[in-house]
């Protein structure tokens, strides 16, 4: 198509009004974006931001009694139980968290969208089979499933991402199923059918664009959930394998020392909360901008 820009509503809006210009007017969204870039920067430039190695157990990283060092001094955020620099581990951990957040969550969204939209639009036996599968997945303890899957495959970062996606797509599928089912009953879909539009056309051009806000919101919410899921798996020994740091396994490694050395849980926890908040702020702003019915209202 010659004007493919105009034919897709979402991109058309971006091209015309400029999401950036609108985004720039929202201070909270900018703050969120700043935090996302901060995390991204930390992940990419980790080797240049710190002089320590994330896995090096330093002799001077522990007190004489063998306890972790508190924040301050040569180690800005203190050290962990094994005398490793906490700041360095959090910086490198951002890589793990972002990969899990983006890859696992993206895959989960994709599976959830395909299943939910197909089931919601076609209903009938296709919908029944897909939704019963979803119900089954929901009824099955997600953690147990993840442990089983992780035990079968050799745990690595990508396998963990895959496992998380396999257990996490269910919620997205359910939400999108309900939304698609109600969209499919709307009159403009009936109008499209009377024009002779094909199922593919209706799905891609008239249903999917309406789901974009939901998908974005679920995507941003999902990042915090997947990061936590990864942390849980790591704690159980089937997640990201030590010594590779992730924000989740830093917390779980050190949780027994929570009272003696609270910074070991506080700082990685703060990182998780900040990242989740950042994605939520960005997601909310995008949703408002991408929905044309929300614009131009006085």
């Amino acid at each position, binding site marked *: 198509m010659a004007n493919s820009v*105009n034919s897709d*509503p979402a991109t058309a809006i971006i091209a015309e009004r400029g999401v950036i210009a609108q985004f720039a007017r929202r201070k909270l969204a900018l703050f969120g974006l700043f935090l996302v870039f901060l995390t991204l920067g930390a992940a990419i430039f980790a080797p240049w931001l710190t002089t320590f190695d994330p896995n090096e157990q330093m002799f001077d990283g522990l007190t004489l009694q063998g306890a972790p060092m508190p924040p301050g001094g040569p180690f800005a955020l203190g050290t962990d139980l094994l005398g490793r620099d906490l700041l360095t581990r959090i910086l490198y951990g951002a890589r793990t968290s972002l990969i899990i957040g983006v890859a696992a969550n993206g895959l989960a969204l994709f599976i959830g969208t395909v299943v939910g939209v197909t089931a919601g639009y076609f209903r009938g036996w296709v919908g029944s089979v897909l939704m019963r599968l979803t119900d089954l997945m929901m009824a099955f303890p997600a953690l147990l499933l993840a442990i089983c899957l992780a035990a079968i495959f050799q745990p690595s970062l990508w396998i963990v991402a895959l496992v998380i996606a396999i257990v996490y797509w269910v919620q997205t599928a359910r939400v999108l199923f309900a939304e698609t089912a109600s969209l499919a009953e709307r009159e403009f879909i009936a109008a499209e059918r009377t*024009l002779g539009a094909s199922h593919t056309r209706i799905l891609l*051009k008239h249903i999917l664009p309406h789901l974009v806000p939901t998908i974005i919101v679920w995507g941003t919410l999902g990042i915090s959930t997947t990061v936590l899921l990864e942390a849980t798996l790591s704690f159980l020994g089937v997640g990201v394998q030590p010594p590779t740091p992730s924000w989740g396994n830093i917390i779980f490694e050190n949780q027994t020392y929570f009272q003696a050395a609270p910074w070991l849980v506080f700082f990685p926890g703060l990182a998780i909360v900040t990242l989740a908040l950042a994605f939520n702020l960005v997601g909310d702003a995008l949703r408002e901008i991408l929905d044309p019915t929300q614009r131009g209202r006085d």
Partner: protein
Amino acid sequence: MNDENNKLFGAQAPKSPSDTGLVLRVDHLAVSVNTEAGLKPLVHGLSFDLRRGETLAIAGESGSGKSLTSLAIMGLLPPPAVRVTGGSILFGQQELTTLGENALRQIRGNRIAMIFQEPMTSLNPVMKIGAQLAEAICAHEAISFQDARVRALEALKSVRLSEPEKRLDQFPHELSGGMRQRVMIAMAIALKPDILIADEPTTALDVTVQREVLDLLRDLQHEMGTAVILITHDMGVVAEMADRVLVMKGGHFVEENDVVSLFSNPQQAYTRDLLGAVPTLGDGSGVTRAGKPDESTLVAELENVVVQFDVRSGILGRITHRVHAVENVSLNICKGEIFSLVGESGCGKSTIAKAMVGLVKHSGRIRINGNEISAPHGEMTNQVRRDIQMVFQDPMASLDPRMRVGELVREPLVIHGVGTMREQKEKVDYLFERVGLSRDQTERYPHEFSGGQRQRICIARALALNPKLIIADESVSALDVTVQAKVLELLKELVSEMGVSFLFISHDMAVVENISDRVGVMYLGQIVEMGSCRQIFGTPRHSYTKKLISAVPTPDPNRERQPLARLVGDVPSPVKPLNETVSHVELKNVGNGHMIAVEGTIGQSNN
């Protein structure tokens, strides 16, 4: 003014001297909404008086501020955005605009009561009718719940609800629309308020039910001497109900006069336009259009079309009942003809349209331009698809809100692969201009247009493939009368110019009479009378057709209304148990294609 008022009223109800007393004085009322850009006025300096026992109609089109005025009187403006920003509302000696919420609550429902448009949404669906009425009474009077129930029963009796004792223990969904609106009226009058505000009280009701509710309101008012503010867009209702009329437009006061003077001698141009646009019911001879239908070419043939829906119930989801939506309907539509299907809600007229475009399963035979649409799923080739297009009731709902209108109009061409991109765009530009829009509007989104413009977009979309037949399902019902008149004019032009045929589906008898060549009257899924416009409206034969026509409010306050035979109960339900079938009416030709059903057969079921 008072003298005229007395004359109007005196003929029907004896009046005591106190009846001329002022109950409400609205003085330079201003209502504004708080937006990002500052205060935006919605009602500008509106003033009027309301006297005991009179009916003041506030008439105007959508956005005229008539409902806001009533909400301001009730103190129900949606906080915090919308509020009264000037003027006063004097109720007796009390100033309402400065009254606190608690004091207002004492007045609401008790001294000033309100009836809303949609009776289903204004009643609590999980509370029994009796409990809701008693609750409203208990809220204002210190009486026991038992006594309140007795009062509730009295109120139900006074609104002439059948079997009032039984109704007390029913839920709102068990009642029909007209019955629910009576319950709302009962609730409003139970406390004998000084003022009754009726906001479009009959707009959501069928015309025969509307007639009953209006009669009831009028009788109750005469008995109780309540002052009524009737808010409506329907000039027919105004003419039948009002003593005085206040016309509003865009939040501004336009004109106020007693009803006879206003209709016979409107002072303002807008009032004249408004009255001129109201479709009036004649004898079917008023249709003027260039070009005659080509009777030798049939664009649609329906033969014994049946549409039924199964109702499943119980845990096992077994089919226990069946909705007989359309039963044995046969009709033909010629080239260049406007054929109308008219009937009340639930009569199956829209279902026929859906069957014709393949949105519901049907049995029987449907042929479009000689090509058969296969039963039951209504599958058709793309060529047939192009011949039949549909314009829905609500243009906002039938346009994808996320697409530009130009793209929406171009879409049928894209789907059917007609022409190159450039040709398609030219066609879109042409269509936009043809339906009275400008070509630089193609880049906008549907929500940036008004209701009438959106319906024009839908029409342009339906025209894109040069169809033989366009189905217009209640396509002008949601539009204001002045807009409606222009859209109807456009439809007539399209028929004459392009030779396209219309299946026009409507509940509005006056609109149908103004646009149709031929008319089919539907009742309970079957056609009971069919013929030319002149035959149906000039010499209606079937009792149902006669009832429909006589129930239409006439925008002429001087016209003597024929007394309407009161309906016995409600319209029978088209939902029947599986083992029951519906008897089919027989249509008899009484000359020149005027078909009428043999009376007394419909509505009963054979076991």
